[in-house]
């Protein structure tokens, strides 16, 4: 029998094609409606193959200054004065253009970031469009969103986004900012700038007035220059807790508003009366979605002791059926780790986990030779005192602990510096409410995990950040309200 026989294992290759659109050899910075050459450039790499995809501009202080100036000019002269319904029209147009070019964005997202095409096609891109649609609708209804308050815009917003959901995070940031009448300077992550730069092209196609959206690629220094720029009125950041703390320090005393969406170490709690097969699926979705590069990933699993063996057995069986490999293949479940740096961090923490005495398990299949890969990994026999339980791995690594009572589950779930998300699995409605009330997390899912919607606020407690994105709460972060 051939290797691709239906009975004998793998599927025949089913790659999504990438020949229906163009990725340029190099991209400049999108400033004030024009493409501006940067003094330096850097390469962006396909983490699944190590091949260079394109070269992009590296914005320095000068370029940031230019971008903020452009945004200020656009804010003062056009955008803040435009009738809100007109702003809404632009946002609707962007949303529709994203839908029209959905396949292109999905493929580029998977090439640049390593995530499976199934996810970029079915989650990232449709949700990005949904965020523009949702906020387009709010643009001319802000006074109804906040009854009794005078609503006005803030000014120029500096936004720094991470590499795990590059296009989606750009949409989360840009859509509400524009809907409320602000202008934007956005810096995409160093390893995944392409979809943001493609979004800049799309915004140009949509005919947005110059300077309303500026997109400047670069690295940490670029982001720092943007955040510290004196003419930025608000900072919105999604990324690591360490950088978030630094940003909070740097904006202290400046009067700048800020929202931070940082790390997480979510507890996914499975009771013995849970729908067990669906819970296993939810655990897999919770931690292996986007290779675990998800701030709200369910990276700590708490299973009631009476069903722990059963759940772990089922979990292992399910993980064995996951397809790891080429992100552009439609059958791929687990793609590539986003960067060599992140891979090294995951490997290091996994080593720590082993050294601390937790029991490691990985599925039997191999991974491709070239590129950055890490197999889905389980750690059993973990304790609260293990570093793999306490620290955010941001990779496909699940730390499993058992619990005995609801009180114990809540106590342990909350025993973390983070407080972004959580999950509860039980067939009993009253238990769901008891648990979700007790969990100190911004988002708690019941009998599901990693569900997102533009109308639902997202954000954390404690070291997981401050402020909310999405829904009315997210909208309020981009408005000045006076009563």
């Amino acid at each position, binding site marked *: *029998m051939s290797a691709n*026989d239906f*009975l004998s294992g793998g599927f*025949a290759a*089913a790659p999504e094609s990438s020949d229906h659109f163009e990725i340029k050899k190099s991209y400049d910075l999108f400033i004030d409606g024009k493409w501006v050459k940067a003094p330096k450039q850097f390469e962006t790499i396909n983490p699944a193959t190590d091949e260079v995809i394109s070269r992009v501009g590296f914005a320095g202080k000068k370029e940031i200054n230019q971008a903020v100036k452009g945004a200020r000019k656009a804010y003062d002269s056009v955008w803040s004065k435009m009738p809100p319904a007109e702003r809404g029209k632009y946002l609707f147009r962007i949303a529709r253009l994203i839908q029209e070019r959905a396949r292109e964005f999905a493929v580029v997202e998977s090439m640049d970031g390593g995530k499976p095409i*199934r996810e970029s096609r079915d989650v990232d891109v449709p949700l990005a469009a949904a965020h523009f649609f949702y906020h387009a609708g709010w643009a001319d209804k802000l006074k109804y969103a906040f009854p009794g308050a005078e609503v006005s815009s803030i000014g120029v917003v500096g936004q720094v986004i991470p590499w795990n959901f590059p296009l989606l995070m750009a949409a989360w940031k840009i859509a509400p900012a524009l809907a409320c009448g602000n202008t934007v300077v956005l810096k995409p992550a160093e390893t995944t700038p392409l979809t943001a730069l493609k979004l800049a092209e799309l915004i140009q196609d949509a005919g947005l007035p110059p300077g309303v959206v500026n997109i400047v690629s670069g690295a940490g220094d670029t982001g720092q220059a943007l955040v510290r720029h004196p003419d930025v009125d608000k900072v919105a950041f999604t990324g690591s807790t360490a950088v978030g703390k630094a940003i909070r320090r740097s904006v202290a005393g400046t009067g700048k508003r800020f929202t931070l969406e940082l790390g997480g170490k979510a507890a996914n709690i499975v009771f013995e009366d*849970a*729908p067990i*097969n669906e819970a296993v699926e939810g655990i897999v979705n919770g931690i292996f979605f986007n290779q675990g590069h998800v701030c709200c990933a369910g990276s700590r699993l708490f299973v009631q002791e009476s069903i722990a063996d059963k759940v772990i057995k089922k979990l292992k069986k399910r993980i064995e059926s996951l397809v790891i490999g080429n992100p552009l293949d439609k*059958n791929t479940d687990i793609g590539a780790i986003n960067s060599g740096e992140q891979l090294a961090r995951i490997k290091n923490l996994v080593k720590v986990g082993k050294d601390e005495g937790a029991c490691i398990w990985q599925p039997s299949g191999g991974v491709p030779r070239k590129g950055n890969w890490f197999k889905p990994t389980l750690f059993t026999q973990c304790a609260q005192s293990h570093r793999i339980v306490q620290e955010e791995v941001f990779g496909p690594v699940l730390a499993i602990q058992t619990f005995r009572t609801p009180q114990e589950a809540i106590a342990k779930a909350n025993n973390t510096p983070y407080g972004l998300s959580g999950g509860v699995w039980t067939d009993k409605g009253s238990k769901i409410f008891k648990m979700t009330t007790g969990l100190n997390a911004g988002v708690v899912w019941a009998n599901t995990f990693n569900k997102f919607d533009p109308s639902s606020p997202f954000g954390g407690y404690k070291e997981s950040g401050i402020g909310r994105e999405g829904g009315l709460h997210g909208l309020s972060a981009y408005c000045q309200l006076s009563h």
Partner: protein
Amino acid sequence: MKCDILPFPARRDSPTIDQIGVEERAQRFCSRSLKKETKMSALKLAVSMLDVTTLEGADSVGKVSQMCQKAMHPLAQDPSIGPAAAVCVYPRMVKAAADVVKGSKVKVAAVATQFPSGQMRLKERLAEVRYAVGEGADEIDMVISRGQFFQGEYRAIYDEVAACKEACGKAHLKVILETGELTTYDNVRYASDMSMAAGADFIKTSTGKVPIAATLPVTLVMLQAIDDFYERTGRMVGMKPAGGISNAKLALQYLVMVREVLGPKWLTNKWFRFGASSLTNDLLMQIRKQETGLYQSGDYFTKD
């Protein structure tokens, strides 16, 4: 010694099913993309898993005999395709079918136990099973008493399955749950667990006589029940979705699901069947399309 009959399982021993979760999971199998050799081998496999079915008041010896020919030689010009796994008929047609398929690999399955409603005393229903087996049926497709299930008389379901299994003798027993009437996934799961404990060789979704027949999520619930049963007892139980699977694409989605839930061990017609009447020719048409790159006219495929 392995005993095929396990004690009556309590309802609370069956895990609960989350409707949204199971439907999402089922949907995900549909995003698998089968190409080239994978697709071809899956299509051929599907043909060999067909229970070619006719269950009409108008069934006659002539009609059944012709259908049996089709089951034995699905694609006249290519003997490597098929044969189908079985033909599925009413008890009175068993003899006619058995005469035609004698000596071939095609089995004869008979629906029995007052198919499709099951609304008759157990005594007469068992007599029907014995009659069909006596006429030469290799397999019996029984229906459970959904009415009694809803009355909470679960043990009666367990008992009737066990009694049918006994009446079957050497014939294999497929238990039709009629999932469209049981309605909730929790009911389907419990009915599956009871049937398997009582000795079912196969569990089957539907009679094809009510509007809602086999669906991917309901089949997934039953496959999970089979998986858990195998994990606990080491006994393999077969699965037969029936009704509503009318095209090749859908059939392949079922096969992907079996592969990923139960593994390749279940991917033979000993453990998985499709109950269908119109699926055959679509599978054949897709096979020819894979071979030649072109869709062919329906007139090139026999209609028996």
